């Protein structure tokens, strides 16, 4: 199931290249860093079921001003952002609203203006649909899974890729019809058929936003500027920074090690960092155990990583573009790079609970969250790339106090060399397509992560 996205990515890259790129290269990411595997994989998967929508999506991947339909699904128009009035008729989405909506979210995904006045996409939604929104913040993907499984308390969730397949496999969430979801046609081509939420041609939700896990370094302390993950994984290259390296504190970080091994230990035969056979998995775990003593601090909150880079507790390691921008804006000398091996990345998806008490309100919420105007508010407030590139019109011009100029460029939204390098998070399952049917399950990833940290 991972092939469609690479097909997409490759086609998008070709089109973008043909059009002369047309996008600014973000920050210090080298333009030549697209993973070598993408074109070959794409060629060999032309017959995959996702190929036809992917191909049509690819034709408009370059940010052309034409605004023509990019995939078979319905597109949306621009409304107004201040006051927030997206051009979507929510009364036509789903049936009549149930008056209430209970959702599990990442902190910052449903702001009602209580924190910062300008960021309020909850009240306008309630005004328009009559659905009163109650939110429960999940602090980790895993907490979200646990919460959603608590019977019919919640209608939906903003799930990250390391949770989505678990929810789908367990029947916790239900598929939606993309042809009746307004704005689905505006979703970035590299996300629309992504395998972390599209399973067997069924769409289990609507894309929300994403981020690539780039390599962040203190440019005054890490010289020469790194181009490879070897500065955190290779004993020789990492040596100068031992004790100052950071890594992401989650079992899904094992995929980062697998991605590195995919490029540097071809004899392991890793094709997908999320579908690992036992020997491949063991090799990744050993790499991380070797890395453990060099790690100054694992990070799980992005605010923590910002503090740690600012005061020099950690100086090199994986990041989200948000931290790089925050640090740069704060005057800390930092650089960011897309390493030659490519990078992992996360993408969040709004999913509808199969036991939802208010499914119509949830569907309306999903359509609402896809509009360029709401995408702008949430991307700026949270600091992530929007799933709908139409939001860039507002984002690049800065909407409110948390925004900055050229927002979409900084997050690589329209840059093939950036988004093509991303291997998006998806839940490792035992039953995998690539590894001959037997891969290591996420519960083992989680146990091994405990063991790696010690």
């Amino acid at each position: 199931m991972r092939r469609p996205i690479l097909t997409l990515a490759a086609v998008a890259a070709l089109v973008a290249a043909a059009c002369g790129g047309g996008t600014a290269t973000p920050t210090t990411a080298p333009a030549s860093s697209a993973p070598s595997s993408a074109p070959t994989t794409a060629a060999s998967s032309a017959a995959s079921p996702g190929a036809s929508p992917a191909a049509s999506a690819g034709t408009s991947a370059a940010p052309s001003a034409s605004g023509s339909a990019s995939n078979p699904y319905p597109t949306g128009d621009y409304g107004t952002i201040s006051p927030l009035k997206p051009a979507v008729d929510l009364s036509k989405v789903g049936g009549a609203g149930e008056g209430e909506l209970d959702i599990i979210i990442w902190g910052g995904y449903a702001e009602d203006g209580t924190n910062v006045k300008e960021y309020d996409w909850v009240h306008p939604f309630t005004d328009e649909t009559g659905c009163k929104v109650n939110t429960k913040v999940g602090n980790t993907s895993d907490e979200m899974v646990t919460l959603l499984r608590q019977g019919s308390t919640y209608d939906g969730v903003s799930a990250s890729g390391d949770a989505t397949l678990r929810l789908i496999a367990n029947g916790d969430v239900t598929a939606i019809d993309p042809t009746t979801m307004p704005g689905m046609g505006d979703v970035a081509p590299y996300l629309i058929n992504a395998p972390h939420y599209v399973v067997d041609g069924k769409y289990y939700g609507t894309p929300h936003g994403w981020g690539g896990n780039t390599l962040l370094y203190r440019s005054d302390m890490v010289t020469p500027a790194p181009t490879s993950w070897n500065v955190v994984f290779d004993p020789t290259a990492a040596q100068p920074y031992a004790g100052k390296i950071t890594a992401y504190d989650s079992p899904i970080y094992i995929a980062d090690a697998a991605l590195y091994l995919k490029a540097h230990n071809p004899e392991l035969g890793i094709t997908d960092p999320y579908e690992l056979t036992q020997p491949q998995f063991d090799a990744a775990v050993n790499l991380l155990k070797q890395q453990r003593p060099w790690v100054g601090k694992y990070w799980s909150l992005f605010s923590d990583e910002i503090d740690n880079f600012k005061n020099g507790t950690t100086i090199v390691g994986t990041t989200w573009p948000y931290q790089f921008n925050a640090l740069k804006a704060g005057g800390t000398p930092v650089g960011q790079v897309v390493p030659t091996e490519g990078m992992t990345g996360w993408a969040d998806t709004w999913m509808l609970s199969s036991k939802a008490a208010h499914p119509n309100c949830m569907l309306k919420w999903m359509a609402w969250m896809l509009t360029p105007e709401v995408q702008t508010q949430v991307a700026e407030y949270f600091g992530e790339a929007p799933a709908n590139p139409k939001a860039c019109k507002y984002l690049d011009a800065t909407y409110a106090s948390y925004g900055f100029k050229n927002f979409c460029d900084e997050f690589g939204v329209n840059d093939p060399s950036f988004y093509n390098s991303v291997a998006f998070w998806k839940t490792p399952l035992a039953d995998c397509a690539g590894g001959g049917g037997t891969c290591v399950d996420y519960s083992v990833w989680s146990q091994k992560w405990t063991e790696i940290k010690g």
Partner: protein
Amino acid sequence: MARRVVGIATIVVLLFLYLPILVIALYAFNADRGQSWPITEWTTRWFGDALANEGVRDAFVLSLEAAVGATALALLLGSLAAFAVHRFRFFGRETISFVLLLPLALPGIVTGMALNATFNTIGLKFSLFTIIVGHATFCVVVVYNNVVARLRRSSHSIEEASMDLGADTWQTFRYVTFPVVRTALLAGALLAFALSFDEVIVTTFTAGTDQTLPIWILTNLRLPNQRPIVNVVAVLVILLSAIPVWLSQRLASEGGTPTRH
């Protein structure tokens, strides 16, 4: 001599207790959103932002409601158990204090997981009520301990004397028993309130979509942009809480015996 050494040590320990609070107070005035040292620019703008923040206000009110509810329940259950243990001999009497202490002594995550599973099983919707139930469970013991300790030192004979002099049960309770345990109840209530007001772990398992103040803080510490407001909130809460703590201390010392835990 000994007095001077102890005095100096006391001052050192007090400095230790207040050093982090001083740091929080300083960062509440830090113009930069991050927390790096030393602070180079100062501002008071975060106070305005915090006071204007409805999320903080809602969370604060919810925390107050939860703490008041949990304290009330703890006062009721704790003093009932204390009177039962003090007045009567019965089977299982010795284990009462043991069982009451368990929710506080066992890890919060155990209490949280256990209650969470039970609420789910019986289909109770997560709400303010479930938060109160969770908090009251570990607050009962502090009230119980204070009341039982006070009863142990008071004499039952004065109540008998009151009845002998013609007072009915209600009058005896109102004019004899209650004054004896009043300050103990106050001390217990104060600690129960504080325990509930700052609880994070059990709350994450027993709260639904509502945010208590500690949960709000946990959520907003993740967002770097909100960090200064969190510091301001912490400072304001300390300042606000000084009032009830001081008042209760005054009340307690008027009761003759100094407040004890």
